[in-house]
């Protein structure tokens, strides 16, 4: 499916969601007008995660030798770094582009196609960037928060960005063998999920409302990532409201 057709599909889906959401109560977050529908999709995602994805990820984490896990993680991380380099370039961030580009070079050559993360060992930082972030950096506002089925939290802008990320995803475009391609994509997903095992349990314990926690966490992180200027690593946080101090 071409990019424009995909985008149309996504937009059509969102329009349907919008219609469904119109018949609901007042939302609690102005950036989340589709809250009721989002919550339903989020619940669905949670069930799939609980019953399928998390058990597989835990099994992977506990049974696959750690050096293999590391290799997988490094390999896909390297592919992601290639896309990040491009996006950092599109955001006109010289330092980040150079550093991430150097990572790719070092890891692909000395790290044998990215299996070994030599770059991190020598201290070259990665600056992850995707197309949604690039759009945001150049001023495209995020739009309403949406939870995508199976894919999880996103915004209207980031969904469009994700479609572009997907279109140029190296693993999907360069690998010819269908079996290897799907196998690799599945492995990448499991690897990603395995990275959150442990922290997810912690989140369940400390979040009063898991949906609200994830939504605000996602929006906060995206905002920080899209507003970050070149060379600036601060995640300053919105400290605005805490003028509510108890002066004692």
């Amino acid at each position, binding site marked *: 499916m071409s990019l424009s057709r995909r985008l149309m599909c996504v937009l059509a889906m969102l329009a349907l969601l919008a219609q469904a959401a119109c018949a609901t109560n007042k939302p609690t977050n102005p950036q989340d007008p589709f809250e009721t529908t989002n919550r339903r999709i989020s619940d669905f995602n949670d069930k799939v995660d609980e019953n399928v994805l998390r058990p597989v990820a835990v099994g992977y984490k506990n049974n696959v030798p750690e050096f293999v896990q590391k290799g997988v993680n490094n390999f896909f991380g390297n592919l992601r770094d290639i896309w990040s380099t491009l996006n950092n370039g599109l955001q006109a961030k010289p330092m980040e582009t150079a550093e991430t580009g150097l990572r790719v070079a070092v890891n692909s050559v000395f790290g044998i196609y990215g299996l070994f993360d030599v770059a991190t060992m020598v201290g070259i930082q990665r600056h992850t960037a995707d197309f949604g972030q690039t759009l945001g950096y150049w001023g495209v506002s995020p739009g309403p928060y949406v939870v995508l089925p199976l894919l999880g939290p996103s915004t209207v802008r980031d969904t469009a960005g994700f479609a572009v990320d997907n279109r140029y995803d190296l693993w999907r475009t360069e690998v010819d063998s269908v079996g290897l391609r799907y196998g690799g994509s599945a492995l990448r997903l499991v690897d990603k999920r395995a990275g959150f095992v442990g922290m997810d349990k912690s989140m369940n*314990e400390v979040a009063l409302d898991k949906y609200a926690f994830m939504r605000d966490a996602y929006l906060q992180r995206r905002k920080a990532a899209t507003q970050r200027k070149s060379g600036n690593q601060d995640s300053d*946080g919105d400290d605005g409201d805490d003028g509510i101090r108890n002066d004692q």
Partner: protein
Amino acid sequence: MNTLTFAAPRLFKQWLAILALTLGLSGLATAQQAPDEFMQQLTNELLDMVRKDPALKAGDLQKIGAVLDTKLKPYINFQRMTAAAVGPAWRQATPEQQKRLQEEFKLLLMRSYSGALSQVKDNSSIVVKPLRQGTNDNEMVVRSEIRGGAEPIPIDYRLEKTADSDSGWRIYNFNILGIWLVDNYRTQFSQEINAKGIDGLIATLSERNKTNNRK
């Protein structure tokens, strides 16, 4: 004559000692550790404690919580954090409610920090990044990372200058994995307060803390 010449150096030494002591004391009183040094020292101590104790290393959240209670709590301004998270409703809460909110929120926050610490492995290190000059000298952001796991876990702190703590700094907001906790809780708290009022929020927090402690 002889006694004088013997006494003089001793007196002189005494004066020197007193002088040195006063200078030293005033030095202590005015010297404030730089916030990043302070955090590096504090987090290194925490990490050491976690590494040395096998129960802590195994991720026993109760025990980690107890350690945090003694080591970290004195350096946190829980009142400011709770007030910020509760928002406008804080002013309408009675002192008793405020106290309870603070206690319950403290337990919850320590739980989240314990969660991050429980990911610590043998080869983990906490690296505090160089301080960036902020706009305000009385409030600083200190950035750190727990390294050694699959991915580094970023933990940032917002610190305020204070006369209360002996290091001169107190934490009033945590950022774990890019999420400022006080800001994040603000939404969840206002949801609860709108639905069930302040007492409802206290009840929910208390219930959650009890459930967590049972695990």
